[in-house]
């Protein structure tokens, strides 16, 4: 691993840790009723869109693992769910132009639905009793809408950063 690549990974890790720590606080701060954004979801979504499905899947698994470790229950479910989101985002990123700003909106919306549904399936298999209807109606859908609306704005920033000279694609993780 080159030094530059190590620095990039460190930046990603710091960003991830910051967002992991501040995800609930920031989301709570800008929440509108039940509508709160899911910033963590955007990590695998953007990684997948900009750097392909393997990067997306890896970043997703990392985000999921951090999330699981913090929650302390069903460790691994988040890894799989978020990994799936990264994989899907990478796949959709290869199908369309990544300059299309509708892309992050769709990827975030589908990603949120995928993450929550797969997470629900996984924890339900292992004994969790959580209403799917309630989760979808009162948590997933509002959060999905908010995150999807927010995604293009953040995507512009991340896209510019990823496209900068220092973050060239040839140095992809």
């Amino acid at each position, binding site marked *: 691993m080159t030094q530059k690549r190590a620095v990039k990974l460190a930046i990603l890790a710091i960003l991830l*840790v910051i967002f992991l*720590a501040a995800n609930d*606080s920031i989301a709570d701060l800008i929440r509108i009723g039940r509508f709160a954004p899911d910033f963590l979801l955007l990590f695998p979504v953007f990684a997948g869109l900009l750097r392909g499905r393997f990067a997306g899947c890896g970043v997703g698994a990392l985000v999921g693992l951090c999330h699981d*470790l*913090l929650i*302390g229950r069903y460790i*691994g*479910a988040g890894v799989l769910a978020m990994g799936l989101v990264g994989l899907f985002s990478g796949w959709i990123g290869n199908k369309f132009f990544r300059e299309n700003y509708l892309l992050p909106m769709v990827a975030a919306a589908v990603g949120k639905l995928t993450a929550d549904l797969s997470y629900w399936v996984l*924890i339900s298999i292992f004994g969790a009793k959580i209403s799917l209807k309630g989760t979808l109606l009162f948590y997933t859908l509002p959060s999905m809408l908010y995150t999807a609306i927010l995604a293009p704005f953040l995507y512009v920033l991340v896209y510019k950063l990823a496209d900068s000279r220092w973050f060239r694609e040839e140095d992809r993780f």
Partner: protein
Amino acid sequence: MPRLKKGKWPVLAIAALIILLLICIHATAGSRDRLSLAERGFRDLMAPLQSGAISVSENLRDGSSAKKLAEENAALKEQVSALQEALMDQKELAAENKRLRLLLAYTETLDESWEPSVARVIGRNTDNWYHTITIKGGSNKGYRTNMPVVNSDGLVGRISSVSRFTSEVMLLYDSDCAVACLLEESRTPGVVEGELSASGDATLAMIHIPYGVEVMPGETVISSGLGEIFPAGIRIGSIVEVGSGAGDVMHRATVDPFVDFDRLEEVIVLMTGTGEGEE
């Protein structure tokens, strides 16, 4: 043991990883007595960051709450101000209502030959030369010069000039406003007129009191009806002090008027056919 093809290793690795994760999920499902080392370490690492994030978030929220509170405070102040204004208006209306009732009651005591008309005071002459007020209503309401003006306390003065929509009322204090009067009990005649006291204040005096008549302080002075401008029997004031100069053949007395000329808001113009029309 058969050898796996090179391309199948990643698939097997992913499958193994998934199985490992599923085992992990199963192992960590539900509540546990102890957290793993990785979990404890990660949580301890994240704790100060989370605490800082919450603190910043709360500060931001408090900031916006303070702004909201300030806005709410301003809105409430505005509301209080509006309510106070409404309350003042209501008090004003109540006071006006009371005054108008008194005026109405007073008009019922008047001779039927007088037609009372209530007029609002809209101006006040504050200089030392003249003592007049301006009332709303002039020739448009049938007001004419010399029509007497009263309120529920007594005689106010007479109309000195009339325009189409306003009238000037010469108050009793005015030196040009002389009123034929008499003492209510003794029926002693005299004239009430305005004069300037030594201190510069306008006062009322009853002059031309015959010398042999005993006048007591506190006696009520009323209009006599002589001169055909003011109706008879309207209260003017009470005697405060009686005196006479050396060599005077008549007494003079200081009169304290019943009407508070500084607080006139509505007056009654007593309309007759005897006034002189003027515009």
